[in-house]
């Protein structure tokens, strides 16, 4: 048990250090694989530069005007901004990120996109979401759940903040079979 907790803390620190150390995201080379030209035109260049996702959850989420959306692991804000555009000023888009510098980027990019009136960015962990019970209609995330050393806890928290009938739409990577131990044990691979 103590070893498990130490391992969880080690993973958490490795992920925080990795994300805190980078000076840019995947940029256009990543963003153009995931988003259409029209979608990219809706977000500021800075948010595109900080794209670090692995899919396009907003495209699949069927967001409706007036809904409250939580983007778990919002990073530079590209998906939060796309979600805010779809729910409109009658709704709300909340970005959650463990790093304050990511939240600051998200706020700046949301203001540049003109959706800051109904967007907010909170610093916090997905395993302890700083929102009340049943306060969200839809949870999205993009390449984030895999970063948690406590995925079941994170999913329980997401369940808690969603209201009855609430939806999740998550993009992530799955791996079938084993990766070579040199890769599986590398801290950089955990963060990626």
């Amino acid at each position, binding site marked *: 048990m103590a070893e498990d907790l130490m391992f969880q803390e080690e993973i958490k620190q490795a992920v925080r250090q990795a994300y805190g150390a*980078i000076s840019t995201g995947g940029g256009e080379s990543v963003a153009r694989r995931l988003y259409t030209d029209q979608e990219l035109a809706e977000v500021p260049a800075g948010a595109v530069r900080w794209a*670090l996702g*692995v*899919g396009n959850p907003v495209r699949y*989420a069927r967001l409706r005007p007036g809904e409250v959306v939580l983007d778990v692991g919002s990073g530079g804000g590209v998906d939060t901004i796309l979600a805010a555009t779809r729910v409109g000023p009658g709704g709300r888009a909340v970005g959650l990120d463990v790093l304050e510098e990511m939240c600051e980027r998200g706020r700046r990019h949301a203001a540049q996109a003109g959706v800051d009136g109904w967007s907010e960015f909170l610093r916090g962990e997905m395993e302890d979401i700083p929102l009340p019970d049943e306060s969200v209609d839809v949870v999205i995330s993009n390449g984030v759940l895999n970063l948690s050393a406590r995925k079941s806890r994170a999913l329980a928290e997401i369940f808690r903040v969603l209201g009855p009938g609430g*939806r999740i739409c*998550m993009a992530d990577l799955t791996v079938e079979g084993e990766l070579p131990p040199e890769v599986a044990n590398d801290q950089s691979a955990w963060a990626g």
Partner: protein
Amino acid sequence: MAERVFAGKLERAGFADIWVGGHRPFGIDEAALYPLFTSEVIEVMRRTIPPDRQDHVATGVIVKAREPA
């Protein structure tokens, strides 16, 4: 995390109508676009993962589910 493990965790958390789709291969060349993967780990991946798996090391998926009403 394997796809069936992901779906199982969602089910145990209480979610219903679990759907996994949008499957997309994720290879080493794509991983190299992300600054989170160091050049060292990319090199290790190229050296240790069999050539026929290098363009599909992982799979990008979209997972949807719903909390029961």
